[in-house]
């Protein structure tokens, strides 16, 4: 059983060709539901299995030694395939804040709107060489400092998808 990420898009179709105010020659209405099921591939399959059990797994490039979270098939720097069965690394729940931003914008795949400010951070999990991007929780903006230590706040119920990590809190 391979995992996939489901993204549903609803398209409302209203197609009219108006000759004048009164005369409409074609009028179609319909609602199309598009289910995009993105196969995550075997590397992320394994990673999401880990997330479901509240564990972070990365994989290591056998050449340059960079550790990737989430794991990847190919190290872009070295241009080599990291074998699926090898070079897996168990990583801790802690990391370092590398960058952050605050915004009131919420973007989803249909629209963008404004709500309450939230803070998003780039966090480098300890022992890895890349950053992942998540919300920073339970922090005042004044407390947020680049270089600070943070740790994962897990969702109560994990499902094996990106939402298993609720965000990061101060250590």
């Amino acid at each position, binding site marked *: 059983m391979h995992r996939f990420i489901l993204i549903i898009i609803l398209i409302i179709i209203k197609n009219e060709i108006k000759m004048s105010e009164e005369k409409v020659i074609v009028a179609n209405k319909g609602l199309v539901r598009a289910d995009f099921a993105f196969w995550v591939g075997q590397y992320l399959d394994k990673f999401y299995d880990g997330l479901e059990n509240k564990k972070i797994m990365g994989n290591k490039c056998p050449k340059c030694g960079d550790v990737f979270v989430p794991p990847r098939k190919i190290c872009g720097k070295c241009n080599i395939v990291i074998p699926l069965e090898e070079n897996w690394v168990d990583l801790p729940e802690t990391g370092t804040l590398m960058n952050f931003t605050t915004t009131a914008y919420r973007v989803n795949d249909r629209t963008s709107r404004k709500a309450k400010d939230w803070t998003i951070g780039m966090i480098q999990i300890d022992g890895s060489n890349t950053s992942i*991007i998540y919300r920073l929780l339970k922090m005042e903006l004044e407390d947020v400092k680049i270089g600070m230590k943070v740790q994962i706040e897990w969702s109560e119920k994990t499902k094996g998808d*990106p939402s298993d990590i609720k965000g990061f809190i101060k250590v």
Partner: protein
Amino acid sequence: MQKVGIVGYYQVKLYSDANYGRYEMIFEASRGALDKAGLKKKDISTVISCTNDYYDGRTISNCFTVEVGGGYMADESKVEMDGAHAVLYGLMRVLSGNHNLAVVWGGSMASCYPYHAARLYETDPTWERPLAYVNDITSAGFQMRAYMEKYGVTAEEIAKVVVKNKKNAAKNPLALEEAQLANLSVKDVLNSGIYADPVTELMVAPPCDSVAALLLAPEKQALKITDKPVWIKGVGYNQDAYYLGDRDLSGCKSMNLAAKMAYSAAGIKDPSSEIDVAELFEAYAHEELIFAEELGFADKGKGAEINSAINGDLPINPSGGALGGNPPCGTGLIRVIEAVKQLTGEAGEYQVKGAKKAVASGQIGMCAQNNILYVLEGN
């Protein structure tokens, strides 16, 4: 590289909500460029368009633009990046010797679709997209913070870029009306509301509606078509790593490598003294400074020290740049056109005196992942 000339151009004025049909706009641009150069439909041998299926809300968005863009029964293709990349493909087609006149057009109508939502489709659907923490808004915040943190650049210095570009836009009749702000102050920019901290609303290139078109011809034909062709002396294009966590956001490696490629083709050794004017696609104000540094106009972190006003040492974006209006798929192409105007002396109120060599850039992706740079020279 053989000489290829830019022999004509046309840009539809930028509107935040244009009262145009999409196809009228495309027709106006491509037909306008042909008319300006005194050419006919029959003369077109190839057409390269630049649109995006997500921006147009239509699969195979070039399907319905063939005729209005001049591509009926001509050798035709579409580049789905920035308009500046379409110029590259047009250039390649002319260089091949198969074609003597390439029409390149690009643009879209941002008023017709949710811009940020469409940009969200660029993110990795198997990891980043479901939660949407990575999008064009937050990535702008990360990029500006990384740049400020690393070099100690202040928000005021970045706001000055906005003041300059919006002031320049006020002199450009084709710029977006809402962006033509001759009396803007640094304080206004900093107080314009948080977009993604530290980026404020006025530091963002406003998405808008427009289409632009450009004509390319080989040297021999170019000289017959116009007295004032502009030559493409060099081009460089490059793509950086995808994940923001893999990149150093305080700089822009893809712009650096694109510049190296373009400069070596054009034989440019000292860009800050050899280049007279730059038209850069800055999606956010801080990108203009980052790009200027990567292009060798200033040392790293010193981009704000360049005197880049119209009458300055090295004018950057005298037309107002993308901060004067950013029609997706068209902005990079408009930068090339603006550089051409400077070199042919057609820039009117924002003309840089005695401009001989110019650079123009285009980009796509979060934090300018893919960049393209042209070195242009007047006849």
